[in-house]
């Protein structure tokens, strides 16, 4: 499989490296989920792990999410550090009671007696042509719940650093990967190649500095925003692009600081608009000091409020495209 010392690597590979390094570092870490072992992972993220660590630590489960998620949570309660993979987060709905009621709430209900160090990870949101039941974004659903940390990496470095932090975290972490980002190559920094490279959960990153508008986004749409920013720059509009990295807890300070500088806010996400991540960001900005710096109402760019269709032309028009982002920025800036 190689090591992470190459300089251009994909997000999938980096998830693999994160898991490999943490499995090696701590005996209590193990991975379970459908096809994670002998199939090498449904999306090949865990390829090679079973050969290296064997049956005890890389466990193929039957197709029974509610059962195996409960088992993973119980194992975490008893002192192990499971990584529970959902083949996609759509299937986590079958197990969502275990994620919320058994994992997220337990430390609170027990007043600190029982902690649950578990990571729930897998691809989230739209893929390509997989239709309505396999395309939902769960950032808002999980982001709603106290007791959970919800992380949404964008690039390969995010994937590695945040997944390592998630595995080392003593609390339940929902780690929302993106299938379309798995295969995208990114250049890796020197420091990201270390076995102790972690990115703190709860801190957003300004991927691009700008002065005219703040774009707040997560996961795949960071790429879209950066592409839109490049186009807008040619027209003299300088966008500041914030990669949230973590959905919960939200780095409101980073957003506010930026909005106080640019006076304009556009949120971009793949999920549905109603009660979504963008809605929360707008509400938070209204409640804080940055509101007085807004020169225009904040704008949300989101997925279309429909179940995901199959036909390519329909699917393409169900999700924010770069032209939609550019359009929305210009409308917000009234240009």
């Amino acid at each position, binding site marked *: 499989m190689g090591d992470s010392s190459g300089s251009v690597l994909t997000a999938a590979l980096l998830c693999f490296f994160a898991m490999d390094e943490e499995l090696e570092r701590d005996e209590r870490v*193990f991975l379970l989920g459908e096809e994670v072992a002998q199939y090498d992972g449904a999306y090949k993220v865990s390829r090679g792990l079973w050969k290296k660590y064997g049956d*005890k630590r890389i*466990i193929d*489960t*039957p197709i*029974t999410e*509610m*059962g*195996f*998620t*409960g*088992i*993973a*949570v*119980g*194992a*975490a*309660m*008893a*002192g*192990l550090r499971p990584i529970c993979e959902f083949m996609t987060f759509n299937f986590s709905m079958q197990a969502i*009671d*275990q994620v919320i*009621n*058994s994992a997220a709430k*337990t*430390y*609170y*209900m*027990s*007043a*600190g*007696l*029982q*902690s649950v*160090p578990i990571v729930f990870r897998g691809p989230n949101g739209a893929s390509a042509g997989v239709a309505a039941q396999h395309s939902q974004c769960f950032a808002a659903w999980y982001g709603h719940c*106290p*007791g959970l*940390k919800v992380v949404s990496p964008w690039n390969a470095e995010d994937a590695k650093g945040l997944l390592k932090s998630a595995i080392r975290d*003593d*609390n339940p972490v929902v780690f929302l990967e993106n299938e379309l980002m798995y295969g995208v190559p990114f250049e890796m920094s020197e420091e990201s190649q270390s076995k102790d490279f972690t990115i703190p959960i709860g801190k957003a990153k300004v991927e691009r500095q700008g002065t005219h508008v703040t774009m707040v986004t997560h996961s795949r749409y960071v790429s879209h925003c950066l592409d839109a920013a490049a186009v807008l720059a040619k027209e003299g509009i300088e966008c500041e692009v914030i990669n949230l990295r973590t959905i919960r*807890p939200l780095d409101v300070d980073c957003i506010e600081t930026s909005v106080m500088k640019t006076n304009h806010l556009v949120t971009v996400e793949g999920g549905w608009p109603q009660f979504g991540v963008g809605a929360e960001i707008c509400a938070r900005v209204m*409640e*804080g000091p940055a509101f007085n710096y807004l020169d225009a109402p904040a704008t949300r760019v989101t997925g279309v409020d429909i179940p995901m269709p199959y036909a390519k032309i329909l699917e393409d028009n169900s999700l924010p495209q770069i032209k939609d982002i550019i359009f929305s920025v210009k409308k917000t800036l009234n240009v």
Partner: protein
Amino acid sequence: MLSNISNVLRAGAQKNGAALVMSARSYSDFTTQASFEIKKCDIHKLDEAPATEVVMTRDEGLQYYRTMQTMRRMELKADQLYKQKIIRGFCHLYDGQEACAVGIEAAINLTDHLITAYRAHGYTLTRGGTVREIMAELTGRRGGIAKGKGGSMHMYSKNFYGGNGIVGAQVPLGAGVALACKYFGNNELCVSLYGDGAANQGQIFETYNMAALWKLPAIFICENNRYGMGTSVERAAASTDYYKRGDFIPGLRVDGMDILCVREATRFAAEHCRSGKGPILMELQTYRYHGHSMSDPGVSYRTREEIQEVRGKSDPISLLKDRMLSNNMASVEELKEIDVSVRKEIEDAAQFATTDPEPPLEDLCNHIFYNDPPLEVRGTNPWTKLKSVS
């Protein structure tokens, strides 16, 4: 004989420090242990069954009696406090089922693990909780076992994972604990309890499958008290042979009103698990005197005659008491002394539970995350910023 005296003295001194009234008879008159014939278990996919002739010592009998009586009185006190509105919300009482909790614990170690559903006060006691902290949790005070933040359904202690409110969810959790036992190679096991109502849950069958596949050291125990809330077993389950529902998992059906049956079956099951054979299922046939919870009078779906009959013929504490008395293992006075001492313990605990202050408001947002720096939590409005520490 001398050890019996010192045990009783020690027990008396521990409980309330009061001077122990020596009964008229000398302790050398009592039998130190006796054999008992118990009901044979029905077995499923097993070649052997638990023993039907078992030995109980006087010390064991006294301890079981005291624990069951404590459990009984604690639950009855909770009933009282609930009716006085000092306990609120849900309160699912265990009286009638004492032989299950006490019998199971008698056959496992505190280093083993146990998880159950919401009818959990008895297990919180057997797993190391004190009556004080259980009652104070019911009344929502800071001295409660979960500092007042969990309530009746969310009590925890070492190797006891609650107290779980979602029917059936505790079973996969328990199998996960068993997985950890196997992973660590520590020869421990996990007992996962559920009721006849939960027994039809899909996630339980998912758990049976994985526990058997991976040979987890898991004892699944169905406490069949004949009613899932108000629905009798015949109306809820196409097959009421709960001990067979594990299909490929061997099973035992046990008289859950007889503590010695429960103990012996649990011993058998524990041995099965620890020898690496994988999971095993036990169905304990038991009965609850109260309704499903305090909001259920418990008589719209069953008859008062049925309740009286069980109380009259099968009460677990009476069964034990009769056994001990008729085998000369204890005297009536001695057992009465235990009753008095238990009553006092419960009164003290209730006193504490009603006078201990509620948790401080500063505690509202604590315990969201473990081992994390303090974080800010939004209050009910944007100007209220609350603090949360681990």
